């Protein structure tokens, strides 16, 4: 039961974008088309689950055991960068069509703060392995859900009569306000 609450909390209530403000750059940058938003969401999901699992193991068995916690950020960011690079190489070799459609988003993920944010949050909150896995699955699913909804709205916004200075990102941010308001109404659920 607790795990279910943790999962839905990560997806809906403490939504990574709308209430924790992580991963705003891809949220604003890669949400003009629905197809690219889904591609980004899928790539981020894979990277977050892998990165959280690997860093959790490293944190538990290397950093804490050797008492070199001061190396944490450097190790985590290297792990994330390597996973992104490796994923890119593997996809290029084994799944060329998928690589072609997702290729441009992959390098961007290294500097997506949602990835490093989830990794740090797992360790700061002292999650055990199962909790870590559930949480790291919920966060990117919430990311994908919100970026998909947002991109659908932005496709419509293209055709709306908006005052010139507000075209583009300013109106997108105002739309995000209402999405955040809607999501904050879910707070009482779990």
């Amino acid at each position, binding site marked *: 039961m607790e795990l279910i609450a943790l999962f839905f909390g990560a997806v809906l209530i403490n939504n990574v974008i709308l209430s924790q*403000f992580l991963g705003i750059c891809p949220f604003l940058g890669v949400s003009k088309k629905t197809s690219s938003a889904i591609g980004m969401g899928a790539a981020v999901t894979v990277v977050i689950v892998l990165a959280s699992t690997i860093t959790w193991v490293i944190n538990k068995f290397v950093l804490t055991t050797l008492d070199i916690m001061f190396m944490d*950020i450097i190790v985590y*960011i290297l792990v994330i*960068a390597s996973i992104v690079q490796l994923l890119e190489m593997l996809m290029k070799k084994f799944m060329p069509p998928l690589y072609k459609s997702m290729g441009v988003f992959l390098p961007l993920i290294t500097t997506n*703060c949602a990835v490093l944010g989830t990794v740090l949050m797992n360790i700061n909150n002292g999650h055990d392995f199962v909790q870590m896995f559930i949480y790291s699955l919920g966060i990117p699913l919430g990311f994908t859900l919100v970026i998909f909804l947002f991109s659908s709205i932005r496709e419509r916004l293209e055709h709306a009569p908006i005052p010139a*200075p507000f075209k583009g990102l300013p109106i997108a941010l105002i739309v995000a306000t209402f999405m*955040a308001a809607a999501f904050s109404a879910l707070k009482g659920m779990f």
Partner: protein
Amino acid sequence: MKKIKNIFLTGAFYENPTFIGFLGMCPTLATTNSLSKAVGMALATIIVLVLSNFFISLIKSITPAEVRIPVYVIVIATLVKTLELMLAGFVPSIYESLGVFLPLIVVNCIVLGRAEAFASKSNPGHAVIDGLGSGVGFLLALSLIGFVREFLGTGGIEFVSYFDSSVKWISFSVIPGEYVISLLTQPMGAFLTLGLLAGTITGIRMTISKRKANAAKLAAGK
């Protein structure tokens, strides 16, 4: 001298990282619910930005082009961790209020962006000025957003000293409690304030450039 002034003004105003570049959005939205938090975030970012620009510019000739991004990231991560440990030791109030966003300076697009776009191509002196310029632009933008959100959201500003919690640097309250817009201090208020301010600033810039174009047209007509 003129070049140095230009580099600084470009970073701070003409290419303001927040309102024109839309870079580093995560800390901009997350740490601006009070002025003191916003200023603390911006100061921490300035320190990292200036030092990372300096060191990356120093090592630019011995950095192989293929692995430059990982090299930059390691330089930045080392600086951020050092800063985090120093703040935890000497200024715990900033360390606690920023939380996870302090280590996340590592993935702030402004820092990596300036390293790639400027520091890797210029001498250390100019790189420091560029870092300072972009940093000050970030500070101004965050202070503006933080001020608007805290002032309208709580009715006043309360800026407690970072070093001593009993000393208040700024403290006043103007709007009575029943008229404040408390929504602005909540997460959704961050999106709203940034959207409205960005739209307004774009509008002002459009008007100015239109006037300049008209003036140029008149001058050419004569």
